[in-house]
């Protein structure tokens, strides 16, 4: 029975290894310096994927720029100010439900709200805002976790020394929790970089003539590029190396971001253990 249970865990590890190996072996041949620094040529069948990398970086950073401050403030409210009651339970439930909303529904929302009602059009800013909405629950959850990890006696000590509540929060609690909040920021970046459905109708197009120069420009993005190259068009087989290359590069970005978040968190957890 124990063997059976270890087997289930082993299947996960093997699946991940097989998955990564397959993409890596096929993708590594496509990746070169020119692949990441050149514009596409011959209607996307040759050349590099620079505009998709630039687009994805802009989108992910833009999303975090909106989501991180709002998420941290929400977490501060929930963890530091609010007393347990109807209002707090409503907000918490709202965040939980937000986390469960399908990514394609965020795409629809972004289309109806940012693209159409706010008149942003299909643009970098509309995509960044949609992605920000998408990663908000994740950022809130991880910021809350960071705040909860700050020992209660640190807060009490500050209050006992005569600090007011907001002095305690801004000068004691936030600086203590900030490093671990960065894990939430990194996870948010990685989630925003890898997601496709929210940007499909709000920001991403298959091809742009130039790199984006304004926040109201349409952008190319790596996940969308993989999807379109692999499913649409007449050159699906011909562009296979490009697809593998883009997929590997996207995977590398996401895995490196996630790994650094995990490592950072593990180190900080050890530090907090000493505190208590």
């Amino acid at each position: 029975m124990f063997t059976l249970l270890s087997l289930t865990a082993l299947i996960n590890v093997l699946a991940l290894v097989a998955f990564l190996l397959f993409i890596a072996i096929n993708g590594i041949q496509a990746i070169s310096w020119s692949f990441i620094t050149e514009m596409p040529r011959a209607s996307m069948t040759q050349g590099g994927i620079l505009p998709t990398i630039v687009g994805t970086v802009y989108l992910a950073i833009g999303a975090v720029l909106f989501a991180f401050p709002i998420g941290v403030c929400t977490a501060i409210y929930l963890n530091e100010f609010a007393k347990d009651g109807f209002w707090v339970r409503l907000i918490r439930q709202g965040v939980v439900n937000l986390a469960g909303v399908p990514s394609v529904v965020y795409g629809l929302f972004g289309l109806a709200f940012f693209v159409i009602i706010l008149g942003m059009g299909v643009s970098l800013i509309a995509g960044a805002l949609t992605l920000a909405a998408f990663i908000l629950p994740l950022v809130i959850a991880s910021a809350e976790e960071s705040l909860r990890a700050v020992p209660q006696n640190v807060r009490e000590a500050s209050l006992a020394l005569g600090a007011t509540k907001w002095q305690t929060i801004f000068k004691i609690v936030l600086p203590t929790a900030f490093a671990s909040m960065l894990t939430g920021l990194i996870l948010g970046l990685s989630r925003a970089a890898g997601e496709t459905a929210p940007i499909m109708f709000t920001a991403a197009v298959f091809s742009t003539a130039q790199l984006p120069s304004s926040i109201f420009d349409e952008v190319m993005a790596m996940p969308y590029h993989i999807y379109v190259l692999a499913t649409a068009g007449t050159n699906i087989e011909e562009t296979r190396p490009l697809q593998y290359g883009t997929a590997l590069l996207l995977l590398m970005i996401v895995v490196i971001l996630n790994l650094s978040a995990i490592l950072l968190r593990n180190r900080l957890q050890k530090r907090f253990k000493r505190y208590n």
Partner: protein
Amino acid sequence: MSAVEHRVATAKTIRARGLITNRTIDLIVHIIFLLIGASGIILLALIALFLMMEGLPIFEKISFWDFITGTEWYPTYVPPDYGILPMIAGTASVVALSALFAIPLGIGTALYLAEIAPSQVRSVVKPVIELIEGLPTVVIGFFGMVVVAPWMQNTLGISTGLNVLNAAIMLAFMSVPTIASIAEDAIYSVPKSMREGALALGATRWETIYSVVFPASLTGISTAVVLGLARAIGETMVVLMVAGGAAIIPESIFDPVRPMPANIAAEMGNAPFRGEHYHALFAIGLILFFITFMFNAVATYFANKYRQFE
């Protein structure tokens, strides 16, 4: 009087007059944070509002009942057909089959990590599972398309490798981590005293897991399963790329299907703005939103029960 002393004095007078007391500052900060803190719930309300605004108009053309039970989806024909039963069946079949793989694997992994694994193994497997959870789903879909599909087509001798089974396997791959990590938390939090009690009464380690730890963490495990299923229902890229895309009600696990999220993603780009087709796609989004909302409500219900147990 130096500048600093002057400022201190001014601050003292302002406070003495009761204009800006520390209490007022705390109150102002509290209100600001309350407003920002409400952004989550406001966002949720906005999403629901816009889905309804753009989705409900379709029900002026076709009744809700006909919409969800119609078997023909030809939005561009004249006259068009808007029946989404094939998509509902597509989502149901893919998710149900993936649950068959993902639930035992997820719970098994969680039990292994919480009860059996030596701490070194645990410190490797846990990050691996978190990594899988963070993989871009478009790459999982791509893997299903270019690796699993041709293999399946050749070894099983079927007409297409893009089908219910393939999509279910890929969905299971991405929802096992969700189930495993939440279930592991639940199992891990079962009090040590309960385990020790069972062992002291002469139960073996397996009997302890099976008849004490597992039942005690069952509500937490249920939360995990429901959230994992919800994630699979809403997942778009995997089913868009791997499920085959045919709007038919499947008769076998080797049939291609077109789950609801895939249908929205595939057609939204071509639907004329605020036309019937556009409204119909938003209506599918609205239904999807409510289904995942219900799943979340169930998960919350289990989670609260589990907290009471603690």
